[in-house]
């Protein structure tokens, strides 16, 4: 004990070497994360790694979807290690943490006082987990790995706006770290708070099992933490149930195939941008708030240029939170994205023009042109059994600026 209070020279050298080694590891992790997230096609597996490492995302997803996906494994392993090694992920691996630590160091050199007291992250965590139980994880989007992944949307030309939004978010955190060093890691980060919770739990369990053993670190009675956590969980569940009752948005956006129900999706989506970056046809965009504030930055489908191909399930493979699940190439025709609808005021057939674009490009033979004796013209009729809302018709429709045939979410269509 005394050694720790008064470290000798060798201990200082040791600590310094250890710090250098840790910095090196963190740099390697940062570079690795960047490489994984850079836009090189055909590397879905790599793309999924970074956001999937978060145990916060994994546990929330299990609670929200009541299922276990293979992709949650990574996060669970991280969480398992965190039970025994307090905040190991923050100290050794977190790419976001390293960036913010850089800003914090600069802040400390500028004589800013390090952030010490308030812990919002714990509340974010508790509210999210509480909400997840009822299918609406409130603050999953604040996961640092998802925020970090979002940055890489800047590399996608068609996603520039979304990339800028993500960039501004991270830039804001950097400025905060400059002004109040370590504000994110110590005060705001729900992933950090989750690791805190995990190690507190494990310590409590271990102290019950081996009461004589003197565990290092501050003496936690555990009770205030537990009380706060339970309160947070209850509040999260309460707000999620309120959202469930009141949260029906008037216009529902189109989600990637296999998306969980709309309300859950808004919460469960960590906004990591993986699906957006994995889409080879660039039809997934970030919602910029057209469908209500709750769904901001979530992925929505746009069919103005291309459509959701019948031979592609890439976005469903890279979702770290299980918000997009359960699609394979066999069942893809049955996975409902939405339903096509024709506006005869815009359709070329309504003006007797020669056009068969939507029928030609429908991969599921869901469109037929039926001759109406009364109108004496052809009217496109969509077979609701066959149409899965893939958007091939919308992409092919030659009318501009508005497409005559468009896919709407099933709720509106029915």
């Amino acid at each position, binding site marked *: 004990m005394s050694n720790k209070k008064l470290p000798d020279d060798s201990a200082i050298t040791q600590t310094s070497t250890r710090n250098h080694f840790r910095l090196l590891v963190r740099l390697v992790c940062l570079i690795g994360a960047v490489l994984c997230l850079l836009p090189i096609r055909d590397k879905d597996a790599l793309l999924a790694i970074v956001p999937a490492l978060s145990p916060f995302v994994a546990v929330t997803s299990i609670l929200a979807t009541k299922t276990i996906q293979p992709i949650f494994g990574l996060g669970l392993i991280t969480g398992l290690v965190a039970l025994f090694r307090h905040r190991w992920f923050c100290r050794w691996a977190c790419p976001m943490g390293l960036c913010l630590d850089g800003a914090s160091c600069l802040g400390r050199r500028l004589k800013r006082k390090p952030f010490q007291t308030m812990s919002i992250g714990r509340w974010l965590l508790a509210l999210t987990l509480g909400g997840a139980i009822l299918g609406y994880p409130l603050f999953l989007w604040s996961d640092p790995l998802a925020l970090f992944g979002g940055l890489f949307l800047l590399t996608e030309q068609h996603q520039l706006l979304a990339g800028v939004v993500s960039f501004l978010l991270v830039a804001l955190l950097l400025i905060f770290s400059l002004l109040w060093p370590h504000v994110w890691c110590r005060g705001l980060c729900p992933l950090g708070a989750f690791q805190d919770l995990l190690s507190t739990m494990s310590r409590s369990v271990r102290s019950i099992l081996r009461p004589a053993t003197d565990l290092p670190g501050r003496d936690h009675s555990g009770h205030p933490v537990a009380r706060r956590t339970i309160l947070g969980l209850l509040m999260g569940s309460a707000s999620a149930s309120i959202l469930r009752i009141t949260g029906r948005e008037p216009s529902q956006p189109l989600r990637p195939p296999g998306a969980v129900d709309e309300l859950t999706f808004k919460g469960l989506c960590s906004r990591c941008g993986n699906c957006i970056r994995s889409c080879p046809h660039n039809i997934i965009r970030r919602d910029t708030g057209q469908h209500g504030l709750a769904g901001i930055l979530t992925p929505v489908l746009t069919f103005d240029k291309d459509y959701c191909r019948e031979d592609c399930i890439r976005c469903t493979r890279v979702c770290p939170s299980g918000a997009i699940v359960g699609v394979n190439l066999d069942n893809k025709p049955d996975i409902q994205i939405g339903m096509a609808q024709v506006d005869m005021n815009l359709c070329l*057939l*309504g*003006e*007797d*023009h*020669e*056009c*068969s*674009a939507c*029928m*030609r*490009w429908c991969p599921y033979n869901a469109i037929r*042109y039926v*001759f109406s*004796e009364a109108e*004496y*013209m*052809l009217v496109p009729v969509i077979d609701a059994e066959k149409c899965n809302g893939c958007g091939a018709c919308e992409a*092919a429709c*030659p009318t501009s600026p508005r497409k005559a045939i468009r896919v709407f979410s099933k709720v509106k269509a029915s």
Partner: protein
Amino acid sequence: MKNQMTRRDCLRIMGMSGIGIGTGLGIDKQLLAQDIGESGFQSSVIATNKVQDNRSNAVLIDGKVIQPRRQLPVLTETDVLVVGGGPAGIVAAIAARRAGAKVTIVERYGHFGGLWTGGLVLLILGHIAKGPKQVCQGIGEEMMRRLEKMDGAIINRRPGSNPTVDAEAVKYLMVEMIEEAEVQVFLHCWGVDAVTQNNSLRGAVFESKSGRQAILAKVVIDATGDGDIFAAAGAQFEHRSHNVGLVSRIGNLDRIDKTKTSDTEKPKRLGSATPVRGINWVNLTGPEVDGLDLATLTRMEMNHRKYIWNKTQKVRKVPGYDNVYLAETAPQLGVRITRILNGLKTVKVNDIKNSTRHPDVIGVGGASNAEHGEWQIPYGALIPQTVDNVLAAGRCISCDIRMADLVRLIPNCFVTGQAAGVAAAVAVRDRCKPRDANITEIQKILRQQEAYLG
């Protein structure tokens, strides 16, 4: 100058003022004698008490109508016989002639152009691929350029846009081009049968006012649109239904007083502009039916004409639209797709998706509105699987059901017509079957004829 009439002017005036009246001067008598004929009357007797030559009319035997076997007169012998004078047929004839073959073309109506002119399908769709890039070149593009030089023949002829032509200008131009190319022509000549020998075409049979006759040829190009000739020869095909409509033209659209009606009351479906001022052409898609069924075709003609007349009457009742009138309904019914050849190769919709490249490419198609990329047409899509010495051109070439609506568009008929013409000429020159014709040579000549092959 104006007062001094030349002899020609004088004659013209004489002629116009009535042939019967202008008999006072000897010089006119001499000139008009040819027109009047020997009898001195407008009509003259060619033969008296005549019985039809070579007649072998059908007879009723035991309640069955029997057509006796008979020898048919051979009207002519040629290298390349083109059946059908629509966009595909005309271009095929010109291309084959330019490639050095002796060519005969027969057409069932009294004019060239098929559905383009007789069907009043005046809008040129399908020659522009995504980009926009014009993929229809060659003789089709030459026609467009020549129409451009004519007065009032074509509008909207801009890069990346779909032009609209005047039907009469096209009919005139086609006569001009066919005459320039020195192609032998028979109009009013309906190809009804194939002349075959050992599963190979040797010519075709025609029905006309001159009776049933045959034309013998080394290669026959079936540009009938319905595949009448390859079907008669026993080639395999797919019989499909499609929409059968009727185009019309309405006039006085420049005399509408739009101030008299509110926007919501303004009539819709008034078609789109043509080179003639105030005249629109109005498309009609019509129901999906069998375009080879006589009763159906009859019903379509009658129903469509009733509808078009009644619709125009409704338009005329809208305040401000009372001057609008029905200028004409197309002489020819708008049959889109009937028989589709089962060819050695097939144009497939996935060719567009995958940008498939065919080694035997003979032409490239575009999109209706430049909404997708170009697609190559393989030579094999013009060749029947089993029957020899016949090539399909135009809307009846081998294609999958999703591509038929692109294949049938006018520019693509130009493209397949030109290819069929060149291929036929090459086969004649090299004394081989069209399926064995040297594809490199065909492609070389097509390129010389400024066709675009991707």
